[in-house]
C-alpha cells in the first residue's frame, strides 16, 4: 500500500531526526536502505550512541515483577521519583550512596526561599522508591547509568564536547587541577544549569528503571492484561483506519506532484482557507468509543461477579488499581492548600496584589533568571503569572528553541509539503470539527494545522513508545505485506489522531506565537502527558487510573449523588470522561485551563484532572440531585466555561470534611 519512494523519504527523515541531537548528517539519507526502517524506535540517539536509544538495555532486563497475587494486588510501575539532581553528580567520582543527590536542594533554589515552608523544599512526589525491590543504591546507579547513556546522544553532549575542545587550548588549564577546574567552569559558564535541567527533564519523563530482572515490556506496562487490552484496542483502530482507506481508495501516503507542493508551500500560513471536501472522512474514534473499551476491561485474576455487591466497584471501571484517597491527595497537592498563596484565587479583584501576587511575580522572574527547571516546576504549583507562563513552561519542559530545533521543525515542514498522508485529512477534519468551532481557539486554526501536520511526521515522537503502553502501528510497502524488513510505522510518529486531538494543541497557541516553539512545547507535552489520556495502562496518570480515581472520589465523598446518578442511568463517568481525555481543553475558559495545566506541569501528574472532575460534580451536586435522566445531568454540566478551577480544587481537597 505504501509507495517505495515514500518509505525512503521517511527513513531519510528519520536520520535527519537524529540530526537534531548530533548535528545533521544529510549524507545518511542517501545511503539508507529499506532495512533501516527497523531501527526507527530510537531515532534521536542511535546515530550518536548505540544503546542510548533503548533505555531498557539488556542488563536491566530479567524476570519481572510479581504482578498478581492477592485480590487486587497490583504493581503499577513506580512513579518516577522526582528529586533535583546536582549536575556535578554526574561527573563525581564519589560513591553515590554516600551523598544521595536528592537531599540537597539545587544551589539556585536557596536564594529563592521565601517562606519557612519553602525552606525545606523538596519537589516531593511520593510513591515507591524507584525499583521498590531493589536496594536504593543499585536503583540509583541504574538511573544514573541510563541518564548518562541518554545524555551522550543529546545535542547538549556534543555542545559540551565542542566547548571542551575549545577550552583545552587555554593556557590556564592545568592537568593537576583539571577536575576542579571543570567543575568551576561548568558552574561559571552556565553549563551546569543546562546539564542539571537536562538531567531533571530525563527524570521527569522516563520512569525509573524496573528491576533488572523485569522483562522489557514491563517498562511499557507491567500488567499483562492491560498490555493485551491495549493491543486489541490498537488492532481495532487500525482496522477502522484500513477500512476507511479501502472504502475511499486513498493510499496511506503518496508523494505530492510538484505543482501541489508549491501550492501548499504558498498557503502554509493560511491553510484554514482551504476547504477540502472531507465529508467522507470520519474520526477514527471518539472518546465515547474509548470509554466503552475501558468499561469492558477486566483483570483475569480478579473475580467479578455480575451481580453488584460490596466486592465490586459501583462505577463503570471494573479493574482494581490502587488510587489515592483524599488524605494522600492532600499530601501530594499540599501546595494547593488553604494556607498557600494561589494564582487563580489570590489574584482575584478582592485581594490586593500586595498580599501575594506581586511577590509571586517577583519570585517567578527570579526563577526565570536562574534558568532552573526544578525551581520552575516547584514554582508553578502555585500558578504562573500570565506574562511569565510561556517562559516558565518552556523551562520546565527544557525547550530552548535552539537553531537546530528550528531547523528540525523546518524539515518536518518540508516533509509535509512533499508527502500527502491519509492522516492529514483526519487532522483537517478534527480541527474543523473542534477548534474551528471553538470560541477561544478558532483564531488559531492555521497554527493547529501547522503543528499537527508536522507532528504526524515527527519520528522522534516514536521514542515515547518505550514507556507508553501503546505500540506504533506498522505499515508495509506495496507487495511486501507482513515482511518485517519492509515495515514502516504509520503515521511516521506512530500516533493516530482521534476526535478532539487538536484540543491538546489549541490552548498552547495562547502562549507561543512562533510555530517552531509552539511545536516543540506541544510535542514535549504530548510525550510527557497527553499520550496517557488515550492509551490503556495502569500508570497513576493513565486514563484508567484517572477514571477510577474520579469514580472512587465521588463514591466515597458524595455517595448520595453517586448513587442517585447511577440509579437514573447517568453514570458520572459518562459525563466526565471526555473532560479528562481532553485534559479539560475546550471545556474550561482558557485562563482557567492554563491555571490547571500549570499544576499538571508542577506536579508532573495528570491526577489533578480526576480531582477537578469530581470537584465539578460536587459543585453542581444540588442541581444534579434533582435531575432524572442522563440528558438532564449532561445539561447541568454542559457549560464549564464559567467555573473557577482553583477554588473548586481547593474546596474539594481541603475544605470538605472527610
Amino acid at each position, binding site marked *: 500500500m505504501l509507495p517505495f519512494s515514500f518509505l525512503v523519504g521517511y527513513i531519510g527523515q528519520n536520520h535527519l531526526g537524529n540530526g537534531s541531537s548530533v548535528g545533521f548528517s544529510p549524507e545518511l539519507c542517501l545511503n539508507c536502505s529499506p532495512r533501516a526502517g527497523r531501527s526507527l524506535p530510537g531515532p534521536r540517539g542511535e546515530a550518536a550512541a548505540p544503546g542510548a536509544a533503548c533505555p531498557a538495555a539488556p542488563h536491566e532486563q530479567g524476570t519481572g515483577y510479581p504482578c498478581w497475587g492477592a485480590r487486587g494486588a497490583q504493581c503499577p510501575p513506580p512513579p518516577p521519583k522526582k528529586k533535583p539532581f546536582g549536575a556535578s553528580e554526574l561527573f563525581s567520582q564519589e560513591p553515590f550512596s554516600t551523598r544521595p543527590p536528592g537531599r540537597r536542594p539545587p544551589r539556585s533554589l536557596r536564594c529563592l526561599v521565601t517562606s519557612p515552608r519553602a525552606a525545606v523544599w523538596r519537589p516531593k512526589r511520593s510513591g515507591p522508591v524507584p525499583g521498590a525491590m531493589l536496594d536504593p543504591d543499585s536503583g540509583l546507579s541504574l538511573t544514573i547509568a541510563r541518564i548518562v547513556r541518554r545524555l551522550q546522544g543529546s545535542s547538549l553532549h556534543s555542545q559540551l564536547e565542542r566547548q571542551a575542545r575549545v577550552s583545552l587550548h587555554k593556557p590556564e588549564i592545568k592537568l593537576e587541577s583539571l577536575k576542579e577546574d571543570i567543575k568551576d567552569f561548568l558552574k561559571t559558564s552556565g553549563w551546569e544549569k543546562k546539564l542539571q535541567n537536562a538531567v531533571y527533564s530525563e527524570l521527569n519523563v522516563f520512569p525509573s528503571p524496573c528491576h533488572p530482572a523485569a522483562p522489557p515490556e514491563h517498562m511499557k506496562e507491567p500488567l499483562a492484561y492491560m498490555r493485551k487490552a491495549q493491543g486489541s484496542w490498537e488492532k481495532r483502530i487500525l482496522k477502522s483506519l484500513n477500512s476507511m482507506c479501502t472504502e475511499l481508495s486513498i493510499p496511506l501516503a503518496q508523494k505530492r506532484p510538484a505543482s501541489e507542493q508549491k501550492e501548499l508551500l504558498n498557503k502554509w*500560513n*493560511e491553510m484554514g*482557507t482551504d*476547504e477540502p471536501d472531507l465529508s467522507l472522512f470520519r474520526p477514527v474514534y471518539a472518546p465515547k468509543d474509548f470509554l466503552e473499551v475501558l468499561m469492558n476491561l477486566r483483570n483475569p485474576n480478579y473475580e467479578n461477579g455480575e451481580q453488584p455487591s460490596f466486592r465490586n466497584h459501583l462505577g463503570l471501571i471494573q479493574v482494581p488499581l490502587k488510587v489515592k484517597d483524599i488524605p494522600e491527595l492532600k499530601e501530594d497537592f499540599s501546595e494547593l492548600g488553604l494556607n498557600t498563596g494561589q494564582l487563580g484565587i489570590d489574584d482575584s479583584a478582592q485581594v490586593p496584589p500586595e498580599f501575594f501576587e506581586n511577590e509571586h511575580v517577583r519570585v517567578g522572574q527570579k526563577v526565570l533568571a536562574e534558568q532552573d527547571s526544578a525551581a520552575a516546576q516547584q514554582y508553578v504549583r502555585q500558578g504562573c*503569572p*500570565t*506574562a511569565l*507562563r*510561556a517562559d516558565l513552561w518552556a523551562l520546565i519542559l527544557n525547550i530552548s528553541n535552539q537553531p537546530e530545533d528550528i531547523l528540525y521543525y523546518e524539515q518536518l515542514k518540508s516533509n509535509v509539503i512533499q508527502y500527502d498522508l491519509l492522516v492529514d485529512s483526519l487532522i483537517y477534519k478534527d480541527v474543523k470539527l473542534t477548534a*474551528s*468551532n*471553538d*470560541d*477561544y481557539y*478558532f*483564531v488559531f486554526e*492555521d497554527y493547529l494545522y501547522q503543528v499537527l501536520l508536522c507532528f504526524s511526521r515527527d519520528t522522534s515522537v516514536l521514542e515515547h513508545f518505550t514507556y507508553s503502553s501503546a505500540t506504533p502501528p506498522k505499515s508495509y510497502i506495496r507487495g511486501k505485506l507482513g515482511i518485517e524488513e519492509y515495515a514502516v510505522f504509520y503515521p511516521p510518529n506512530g500516533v493516530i489522531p482521534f476526535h478532539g486531538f487538536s484540543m491538546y494543541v489549541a490552548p498552547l497557541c*495562547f*502562549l*507561543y*506565537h512562533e510555530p517552531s516553539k509552539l511545536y516543540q512545547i506541544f510535542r514535549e507535552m504530548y510525550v510527557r502527558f497527553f499520550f496517557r489520556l488515550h492509551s490503556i495502562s495502569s500508570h497513576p496518570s493513565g486514563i484508567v487510573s484517572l477514571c477510577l480515581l474520579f469514580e472512587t472520589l465521588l463514591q466515597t465523598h458524595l455517595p448520595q449523588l453517586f448513587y442517585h446518578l447511577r440509579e437514573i442511568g447517568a453514570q458520572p463517568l459518562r459525563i466526565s470522561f471526555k473532560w479528562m481525555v481532553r485534559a479539560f481543553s475546550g471545556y474550561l475558559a*482558557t*485562563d482557567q485551563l492554563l491555571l490547571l495545566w500549570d499544576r499538571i506541569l508542577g506536579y508532573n501528574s495528570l491526577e489533578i484532572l480526576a480531582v477537578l472532575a469530581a470537584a465539578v460534580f460536587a459543585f453542581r451536586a444540588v442541581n444534579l440531585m434533582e435531575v432524572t435522566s442522563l440528558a438532564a445531568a449532561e445539561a447541568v454540566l454542559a457549560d464549564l466555561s464559567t467555573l473557577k478551577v482553583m477554588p473548586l480544587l481547593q474546596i474539594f481537597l481541603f475544605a470538605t470534611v472527610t
Partner: protein
Amino acid sequence: MAGKVKWVTDIEKSVLINNFEKRGWIQVAENEDWNFYWMSVQTIRNVFSVETGYRLSDDQIVNHFPNHYELTRKDLMVKNIKRYRRELEKEGSPLAEKDENGKYIYLDFVPVTFMLPADYNLFVEEFRKNPSSTWIMKPCGKAQGKGIFLINKLSQIKKWSRDSKTSSYKLGFCRFCTVKYTPSTSELDNMFVHLTNVAIQKHGDDYNHIHGGKWTVSNLRLYLESTRGKEVTNKLFDEIHWIIVQSLKAVAPVMNNDKHCFECYGYDIIIDDKLKPWLIEVNASPSLTSSTANDRILKYNLINDTLNIAVPNGEIPDCKWNKSPPKEVLGNYEVLYDEEMAQSDGPDRDLRSRSGQSTGTKGGRARDSGKPILTTWK
C-alpha cells in the same frame, strides 16, 4: 400601576425585551405615554426631526443623542477630532504636543483619513507616496461593516488585528464607561490576509455560526499578555481607553447636552503590529442581533448593565437624577472618565490618566453639567 416603567422599542431583539421584562416593565405603543424608548437611529431622526418638534418630559429617556452622528459618521468624527486637536493646540494644551516629526504625541490615534471624492487628489498623492500600503474603504453613511473593502492588498503590512470595542457613556458627557468584556472581531497574529478574511467571511458562506468570528476582549488580553508581556498589554488597553475619552471630548462641544438621552457606542479599533490602537469608527447602534450563544449572553449582560446605569433600580426615570452611578450598578462597565470628578480633581488629570505620563498643566474642558434644561431639537 405607578412606579412601573413603560417601555417602547422598535428593535425587536430578545436581548432587549428579555431585559425589560425581567424588570417587570410594561410594554406600550409608541403613541402612548412611555418612559423608556429604545429606538433605532432611523427612528430618532424621524421622531425628533424639525417637523415633529417632539418634546421630552422629565420622566422620559431615550437611547440616543439626536445628533450622535457627529461622532458616528466617519467623516464628521474625523472633522471633529481634527478640530479638537486644533483647539487644544491654540490653547497651548500639553495634550497637543507634537514630536519631532510633527506628529501629535497623544492625539495621533486616527489613521490618515481622506473623504472621497472631496479629498481625492490629496489621497492619490498620499497613495503614491506609500505605494505598498493598504487602504480601508468605508462608506460614510453605513454601519456594521457594510460596504467595507480593501484596496491594494499587495501590502507587506504584518500583524494587523481588528477589534471592535464597545463602550458607552451617559448623559451630559460627564461619565464615560467602557465594557470590560465585549464582542470583538479579532484576527490576531498572522498576516493581513486575516483582515480580509473576516470581511469576506461576514458575507460569505463559510461564516462560522458558532463563534461568528468573534473573540472576546478577555481572550485578546490573555493572548497579548502571554505572548507580549503585561506592560505592553496594559499600555494598549490604557491607550484604547484614552482614545475613547478623547474622541468623546472632541465631540462634546457640538453634541446636544441632553439629560434625556444616554447612548451605547460601539468602538471599532484596529491594533497594529506595534500594538498601537487606531480609531476607525464609532457606531451608535451596536448590533444587538445575537449571532452566537456567547454573543447572546454578552449582549444580554451589556443591555442589563446599560439599563442599570441609565435607569437605576428600574424606577421611572427622572432626568434630574444625579448621574453618577454608584459602584454596585456598574456591572461590567468601568468608569473611564467623570467630568465632574475630573474638574474637582485638578487640571492635569487628563494627562495623568494616560498610562502614567504626568506632565503639563490644564486639560479637562469645562462643560456645563448643571441644571437640566428641557430641550427641544429644532
